[in-house]
């Protein structure tokens, strides 16, 4: 579906409001186009273009709520989706935790749109794949990669007068390059709102260099090591931990942020004083919509961790109301403060340590301590006297990000990184961390 203008979207949301007989109504419209190209074994395997849009209508009668969605926008379909939501609301039992729709919000626009990204065509995608494929063939390497770009819009509205509409663009590129004999593997990831910040050749070269350098990895005994963690090595660990910043879970005693005897650890210093993590919808590197599409509250710049102290928790509308706390739109991005130091400078200042390109298949082992397990992948190196000495075999780790963020020795310059399983963009610095817990070796390359 084409990207709707504000006027076109407003016509739809106004029509929905006029059709419903329910006590209240909220509407979300989102859509646009997503293009992608996928390649493997130095060949394009699939390429596609998806045009789609959805209209979500949520209505309530008292504390009974129903939700219906549709992707047709003619008058008959609009009427149909409203009646379906109303039917479901009448069937639903009363929810004692139901919260009424939020009052009118002031949304301050963020720069989520780039004209250059919106103009990406199949030729551009093919050329992106061609850079990796041709450079890999030239170096007798084998690449597999995926490039996807989107141009979309999002509209939110409710019967209390809330209305917001904004366009956004995104690109995401990942590429894995392996040696023909499978003894070396390198990887790169790039994400951006504006494709002008993306250089397919530069990105492919990073993966190629890591693949060539990672051949003939030596085994290092598992144990606790000083590590230099590139942003892709910590993004999902930190993202996973922030997913546990839920105020209700903490208050209920089922979170690592629960306090002994009751209450939460809000305000406690749980991390190294160098740790500052916040969210900001207007950040120019990782801009996001200025509203939380779930409850339609306006987002604000929010400090999650300030100078190592827990400085905010996430409150649902219900829990904020129950606890007498002002509810704010949930964060849509994550930014960790850093310095001007490059990864190379962090390596140069390390006598003995391990450089980790990325971590993978991260799962929670114990929610009590946010103990996570996972593995290193696609470029793990031994550092001696400030230099990368040789590649080493991959490790499994069992470590808590809380412990990791307590053991920071140095922080570098933040870089944009999109999470693998964490669904938002982040700005994370490379970090030098002591005593990172590698528990076993993996033969995987």
């Amino acid at each position: 579906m084409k990207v709707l203008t504000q006027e076109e979207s407003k016509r739809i949301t106004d029509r929905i409001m006029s059709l419903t007989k329910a006590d209240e109504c909220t509407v979300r419209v989102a859509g646009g186009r997503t293009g992608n190209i996928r390649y493997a074994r130095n060949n394009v395997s699939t390429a596609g273009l998806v045009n789609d849009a959805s209209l979500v209508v949520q209505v309530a009668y008292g504390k009974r709520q129903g939700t219906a969605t549709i992707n047709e926008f003619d008058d008959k379909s609009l009427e149909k989706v409203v009646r379906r939501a109303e039917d479901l609301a009448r069937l639903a039992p009363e929810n004692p935790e139901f919260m009424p729709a939020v009052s009118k919000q002031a949304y301050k626009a963020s720069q989520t749109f780039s004209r250059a990204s919106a103009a990406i065509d199949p030729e551009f995608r093919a050329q992106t794949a061609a850079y990796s494929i041709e450079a890999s063939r030239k170096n007798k390497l084998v690449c597999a990669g995926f490039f996807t770009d989107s141009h979309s819009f999002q509209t939110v509205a409710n019967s209390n007068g809330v209305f917001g509409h904004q366009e956004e663009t995104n690109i995401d590129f990942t590429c894995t390059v392996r040696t023909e004999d499978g003894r070396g593997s390198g990887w790169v990831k790039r994400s951006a709102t504006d494709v002008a910040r993306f250089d397919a050749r530069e990105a492919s070269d990073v993966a190629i260099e890591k693949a060539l350098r990672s051949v003939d990895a030596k085994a290092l005994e598992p144990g606790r090591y000083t590590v230099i963690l590139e942003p892709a090595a910590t993004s999902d660990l930190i993202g996973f931990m922030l997913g546990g910043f839920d105020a209700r879970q903490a208050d209920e005693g089922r979170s690592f942020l629960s306090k002994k005897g009751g209450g939460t650890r809000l305000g406690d210093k749980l991390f190294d004083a160098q740790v500052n993590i916040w969210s900001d919808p207007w950040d120019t590197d990782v801009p996001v919509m200025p509203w939380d599409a779930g409850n339609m509250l306006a987002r604000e710049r929010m400090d999650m961790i300030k100078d190592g102290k827990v400085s905010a928790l996430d409150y649902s509308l219900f829990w904020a109301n129950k606890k007498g706390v002002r509810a704010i739109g949930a964060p849509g991005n994550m930014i960790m403060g850093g310095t001007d130091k490059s990864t190379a400078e962090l390596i140069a200042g390390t006598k003995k340590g391990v450089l980790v390109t990325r971590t993978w298949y991260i799962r929670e082992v114990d929610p009590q301590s946010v103990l996570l397990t996972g593995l290193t992948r696609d470029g793990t190196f031994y550092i001696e006297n400030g230099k990368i000495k040789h590649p080493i075999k991959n490790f499994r780790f069992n470590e808590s990000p809380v412990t990791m963020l307590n053991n920071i020795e140095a922080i570098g310059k933040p870089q944009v990184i999109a999470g693998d399983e964490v669904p938002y963009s982040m700005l994370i610095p490379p970090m030098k961390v002591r005593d990172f817990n590698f528990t076993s070796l993996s033969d995987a390359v």
Partner: protein
Amino acid sequence: MERRTFLKISSGAAGAILVPVFGNAIAAEELMNPVAIAFKKSLADAAMNAATKAGASYCDVRIGRYLNQFITTRDLNVENIVNTESSGVGVRVIANGAYGFASTNDMSLDSIAAAARQAVAIARANSKLQSEPLRMAPVKGVGEVAWATPFTRDWRTVPIKDKADMLIAANKAGLDAGASFMTSTLFQVNQQKYFASTDGSYIDQDIHRLWAPLSATAVDKASNRFRTRDGLAAPAGMGYEYFDARPADKIKAAGGVATLYTKSYDIVDDARAAGRQAREKLGAKTVEPGKYDLVLAPEHLFLTIHESVGHPTELDRVLGYEANYAGTSFATLDKWRTRKFKFGADRVNFIADKNEPGSLGAVGYDDEGVPAKRWDIIKDGVLVNYQATRDQAHIIGEKESHGCSYADSWNSVQFQRMPNVSLAAGKELLTPDEMVKDVKKGIYILGRGSYSIDQQRYNFQFGGQLYFEIKNGKITGPLEDVAYQSNTQEFWNACSAICDQRDWRMGGSFFDGKGQPSQVSAVSHGSATTRFNGINVINTARKIG
């Protein structure tokens, strides 16, 4: 990779915004009216004619209508009820020896023909970077046929109130038995899939699946500790009779430490046990790290099978098509070619099966029109075969496809996905209680817990829901903080006993993720209770700040 997707769907308020990605909400009365077969055939013919005319050497068309219903509950409240529908057409072609794919939700003849022509144009563009043309194993056209998941009660006809009442009754039972908090969710899936191809097949299928995960949490505020115990039932490919809770379908775990379920599920009974056991876990002994003989119940072992046997024997991973996402595989072609690669001990036999009744992977035909079948993957411990689609069969010397092609929607392209991969039961009579008698120092593990494995499937770490210490042939009491780490080949070669067919049952993964853009599939894995000797166990308890 077993995804965390379902957590997002069931996380309360977020559900309302996340669930609709599955499709459009529908009124109950519209659920029961399938799209007329003659209409679907005319759409498919339009696509195939347009593709052929545009120069395609092959074309297949998938017309899908996907109906889902999700009910999420928290303690005594129903948080969300969502009905979704998604309909449309996906057209795949081969032109110039390369694939092209396009899809549309506009089910008009013109729009579908346009999608077919677009697919041909994409195939031509892709062929420029193609170094070798596609080779498809032949499939004989089957004409007009139909297949449906066997069931006796259609979930679409069960009143929403009855389902909500059942989940709330389960939550109440858990809370009454000791849980501080309960959640339960009901996932119901119906895929109406029509497949047609230029090979002469017109296949109409009606597929049903169910899953009802639950979780009990017990909190001790004084010590600031909490523990959870999730449900022990498997998702299933059947109708609402799954919830009949027939007494004959309840069995006792070894030592009577838990009640387990075979062909139907007593969710209230399991929730009650979950509430009690979550509370008991707060006082359980912490494990001493070291080597143990592990006795693994099918409710736990299915996920270890999925990750360490199912994924590494996917031929697309072996060949490198998943290198940029899920990874490759240690089970390489050179190892397979020797016909001597000892994946596991002699007693280890793995069978791929797309026919097993009640399984998540059971279908009549795959998404390339290949009839469902059954074949050996590991025989007497040796790697003998893989899981292949039509374009992969020639690579392993097969004359026909294994029928492993699947797409999760009409708008996603089909590719190689895992069939049910199951461990054959032991040939000698052996019960779980008899198996425990032979263990001097061991741990009995039930339920799916934490899971992680490397990108070539060598090194893994798994946890469970319930752990019991075994000393000198007896289960002595519950343990906590247990995870085992091993290497796939070492682990399956350490397999020292498998219970017999009487103990064989399935577990399953409802949201298995693979591909870019990522697609989910559902698959079952059967086994009997199985023992592994001398496996490394770690203690997972940690202290923070």
